[in-house]
């Protein structure tokens, strides 16, 4: 049962990665591409890590995985903001 749950979570996480990658390639401008990438990756990684945490059935490893997710969340949100801010400054300057 837990294995099935873990697989379901992992596969749906991968689905978010796929959507994010397609968005990165297909969306028209930088802001919407960033939107697609960060939102999809954050949620995708969250689901992936939830799946992996269930799969290991080890509390310590699960906590480490959650820590990785939190670090990536903060880093990806901040870097998306920085990229968008940089692009916006350049637009208003020229």
């Amino acid at each position, binding site marked *: 049962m837990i294995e099935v749950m873990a697989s379901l979570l992992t596969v749906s996480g991968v689905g978010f990665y796929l959507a994010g990658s397609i968005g990165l390639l297909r969306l028209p401008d930088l802001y919407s591409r960033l939107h697609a990438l960060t939102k999809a990756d954050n949620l995708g990684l969250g689901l992936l890590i939830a799946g992996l945490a269930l799969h290991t059935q080890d509390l310590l490893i699960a906590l480490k995985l959650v820590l990785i997710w939190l*670090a990536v969340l*903060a*880093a990806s949100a*901040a870097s998306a*903001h*920085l990229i968008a801010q940089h692009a916006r400054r350049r637009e208003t300057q020229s």
Partner: protein
Amino acid sequence: MTAMLVLDILLVLSLLSLATAALATNDARRSVILFMAFGLVLALAWGRLLAPDVALAEAAIGAGLSGALLLTAVRDQAHRALRSSRKPVHERGRANLRVTLEWTVTLLCIALAGLLAWALAQAFDRAPKDTLAQAVSANLAISGVSNPVTAVLLNFRAYDTLLELAVLLTAALGIFALGPARPGHRAAGPVFDGLARWLVPALILTAGYLLWVGAHAPGGAFQAGATLAAAAVVLRLAGRRSVGLPTGHTLHVAMVAGVSMFLAVGLGLLVLGRPFLGYPPAWAGGLILLIETAAMLAIAATLVLAFFGGRPTPAPGVAEKTS
């Protein structure tokens, strides 16, 4: 097993295409970013080869710090090109030289690849009992640590590591010769500042952990030093002028810490009648930790100096130039 084979083939294909893309583009910035992606995939490949120590070093130094260094170099070059819009003289002679240089480097790389392939084939040909790995695991008990990589780096082949640290010290001296450091970055906005505020303590904590854990699991002075340097790079990018790198004599002490601690331990053991760097098994663990701590400081100082691109200026009164 097939799934893993698919993963390996994907890794190799991504490595080859990232390397080709990084070399093929004319845009230096794009090339650097592709190189950083290449470093990250290479770290995964090292992980798949069951070499987590190399994977950690590759991710921290190869992808992270080298990427930051190269991006700064590209930015500097762009600034310089803006300032002097003068056309270089001897345009044709330069182009010829460039082509010759490119071909020479390519041929040398091919020769090196051939040599490596030959060496690898030789290594595979040998009987497994000849391998150094066997000798290392046989003597691991007297090395003072239980991580075979640390045992080799800091005990069995400590000479090599001592000389590596000397190379780093030479690099730091070369950076000093470049003149004063480049101006810092402008103060970051609240988002990046907030990120730096909790990321930097976490990085320092991670560096301490990597240093300590190196005795029995992947980690050690190089990974810890790179992590410490990454914390300084984050602070520098966030616009802090002082990033924990000391100036003056304290900086000199930090730069030579690794080499001098190594030499002090080695010579001390000579005085006590042991071979140079031949630790007594009972003390080996403590001595290795002592050397690694000093080495971590030296490695971090050198890497931060490289990011500064010159000698840090102590004067606090100098106004920060925005970039």
